[in-house]
C-alpha cells in the first residue's frame, strides 16, 4: 500500500482532498534536481493591440503568423520586416493555428469555427471540409502532410473540450483525410475512461511529423508513439521521464436543464506530465514539463463536492530526442505561456499572453537563416472583412 493511498484512508474522506502538502514522488520517478539553463533567446516578436498571434510557422527563412479576431495572416520576411501582403482565413474569433507543410505551403486549422485548409506561398487560402467524426461532430485539430496525404489529429486541440457519447463509441486518435473531405483511414484509438470528459482529457496529445512518421506525445502520461502509414499499431513507443505520479483523474459536471448547447461547466481534477509540447521536423521534442503538484483547496458552494484541484508547483522547458532522451532543461520566462511551436534548425517559438513571442535557438545551423533582429514589431491592423 503506497503512501498516497494510506494518507487518504487515514483521513477517511474523498480521495483527492486528503493528500495536500508536498508533491508526491514514487520509486521510478526521474530526478529534477539538475538545475535548468537559461533559455537561449535570440529575438522577441511584439504584436499589436488588435493582432494577438495564435499561430506561427516557419517556411524557409520566413515566418507566417496568424492571429487576431478576424483571421489575418501575415508574413515576416527573413530580415525581420513585415511583408505588405496579407491573407485571411475563416475566423469567428482568435485561435487559428499553423503547421508547416511542403513546397512553401502552410496548413491552418481552428475550432473557432471548425475549419482547416491550405495557405499557398502567396497567402491565397484554400478552405477544406472538416469531416464529421465518430462522435458526431466536425472537430478540427492539428493537420499535417504525411506520406503525401493530409492527417488530422482532433485531440491535438487542447482547448476544444470533447464530451464522450454514451453509450461509448470508439474514436481514433487521428485520421487520414480523403479528397472529398471524409475520413479515409484511422490511426490509433481513444480509451474509454468513464464519465463525460475524462476520455478526452486523457487523450490530449501534441503532434508532429518526422519524415513519414506521425509522432504523438500524450500530455497526461508523457507516452510517445510513432505511427507510419497503413499500420494498425504504432511502429514504436517510448515515454518521457516522469517527475511525479499522476493522481487519479476525476470530474464534476454542472448543468442547467434550460441550456441545451454549450452549458456544461466542467471541473476536471487531474494533472498533466506535459503542459504543452512542439515536435520539430527532425523529430526533436520541446516540452513544457510540470515538475510537481500539490493539492490546492478552494472555497466553493456547498453542492460542489470536490473543493479544490491540483496546482503545478514548478515547470520548465525540456528538449528531447524523438524517443524521449533528455538533451537539455531550460528556465521558462515569467508570464502566461499559451502555446509553443517548433521551427526549422532548432528554432522554437513561445507564445505569451503579453503579446510577446520569444524565439529561442537550440543548436541547429544558424547560418542557414540570417538572425532575426532582437525585436520584431508586428504592426498589423486586424479588421473585419469589408462586406
Amino acid at each position, binding site marked *: 500500500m503506497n503512501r498516497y493511498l494510506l494518507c487518504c*484512508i487515514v483521513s477517511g474522506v474523498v480521495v483527492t482532498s486528503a493528500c495536500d502538502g508536498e508533491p508526491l514522488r514514487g520509486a521510478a520517478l526521474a530526478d529534477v534536481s539538475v538545475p535548468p539553463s537559461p533559455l537561449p533567446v535570440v529575438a522577441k516578436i511584439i504584436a499589436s493591440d488588435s493582432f494577438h498571434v495564435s499561430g506561427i510557422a516557419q517556411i524557409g527563412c520566413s515566418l507566417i503568423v496568424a492571429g487576431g479576431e478576424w483571421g489575418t495572416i501575415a508574413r515576416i520576411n527573413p530580415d525581420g520586416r513585415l511583408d505588405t501582403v496579407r491573407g485571411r482565413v475563416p475566423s469567428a474569433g482568435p485561435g487559428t493555428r499553423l503547421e508547416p507543410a511542403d513546397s512553401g505551403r502552410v496548413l491552418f486549422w481552428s475550432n473557432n469555427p471548425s475549419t482547416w485548409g491550405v495557405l499557398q506561398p502567396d497567402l491565397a487560402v484554400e478552405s477544406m471540409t472538416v469531416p464529421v467524426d465518430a462522435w458526431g461532430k466536425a472537430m478540427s485539430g492539428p493537420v499535417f502532410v504525411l506520406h503525401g496525404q493530409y492527417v488530422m489529429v482532433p485531440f491535438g486541440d487542447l482547448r476544444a473540450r470533447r464530451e464522450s457519447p454514451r453509450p461509448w463509441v470508439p474514436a481514433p486518435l487521428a485520421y487520414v483525410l480523403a479528397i472529398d473531405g471524409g475520413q479515409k483511414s484511422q490511426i490509433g484509438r481513444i480509451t474509454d475512461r468513464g*464519465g463525460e470528459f475524462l476520455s478526452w482529457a486523457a487523450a490530449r496529445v501534441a503532434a508532429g511529423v518526422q519524415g513519414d512518421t506521425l509522432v504523438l506525445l500524450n500530455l497526461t502520461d508523457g507516452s510517445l508513439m510513432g505511427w507510419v502509414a497503413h499500420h494498425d499499431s504504432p511502429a514504436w513507443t517510448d515515454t518521457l521521464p516522469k517527475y511525479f505520479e499522476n493522481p487519479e483523474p476525476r470530474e464534476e459536471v454542472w*448543468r442547467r436543464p434550460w441550456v441545451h448547447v454549450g452549458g456544461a461547466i466542467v471541473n476536471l481534477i487531474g494533472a498533466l506530465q506535459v503542459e504543452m509540447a512542439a515536435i520539430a521536423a527532425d523529430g526533436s521534442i520541446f516540452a513544457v514539463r510540470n515538475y510537481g503538484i500539490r493539492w490546492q483547496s478552494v472555497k466553493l458552494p456547498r453542492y460542489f463536492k470536490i473543493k479544490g484541484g491540483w496546482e503545478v508547483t514548478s515547470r520548465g522547458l525540456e528538449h528531447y530526442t524523438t524517443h524521449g532522451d533528455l538533451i537539455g532543461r531550460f528556465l521558462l520566462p515569467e508570464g502566461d505561456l499559451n502555446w509553443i511551436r517548433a521551427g526549422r534548425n532548432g528554432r522554437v517559438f513561445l507564445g505569451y499572453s503579453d503579446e510577446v513571442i520569444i524565439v529561442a535557438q537550440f543548436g541547429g545551423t544558424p547560418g542557414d537563416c540570417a538572425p532575426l533582429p532582437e525585436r520584431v514589431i508586428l504592426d498589423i491592423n486586424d479588421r473585419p472583412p469589408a462586406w
Partner: protein
Amino acid sequence: MKSLRSSLVVALLSALLLIQILSVRDVSREVVFQRGPVTDSLFPSVPVRLLEGRSEMHLRQLLREHGGCTLVVVMDVSCSICQRMRIEWPRRFTAWADSIGGSVQAVWLVAESFEDTREFFGASYSDRISRAQITSDPDSAFQMLGVIGTPMMYLVDARGRMRLGIAGNQLPTPMSVTPVCTAE
C-alpha cells in the same frame, strides 16, 4: 478486552477502506441546477425598452407582436464575442433565418443604460433584429432568464414557449429549428 479493542480497530479500518473504495470508483459526478426557464414552457418575461424609442413594454408582448419564432439573444457591452456579433450578425442571422423556412426574428437584449445600449447597438441594423434594453434590475433579470454568461440565446416559438437554450454564439442548426418554427 484486548481482543474486543482489536476487533473494533479492524472494523473501523475496514469501514474506512470501504469508504475509500466507493469514493475511488466515483470518478464522475453531475450536478443539475433547477432554477431557470423551463423547456417547452412560457419563456420568462422582463420589462424592456426598444432602441427605436418606444415606451417600456414586456418582453412577452414583444414576442407576441413578432408572431413567429424568435431568437432571444442576451448580450453584454463588455463581452468581446458580443461586440463581434453586432457587426457580423445582421448579415449572418439573415442568411440563417432565410434557410429556416419559417418566420424567424431576433431580439437582442442588453442590461445597460439606454445610452450605453444605443451606443453598443448603434452601428448594426437589420429589419429582422429588434434591439432593446432590459429596464429592470440586471441581476434579477438575468437570474429569471437563466443567463449563465453572454451571449446566451433562446429559441422561443410562436406561442412564447422556450424550446432551446444555447450558451455562446453558435446559431442552432436548421435541423433543430425548422420543426419548431414551421409547425405553427
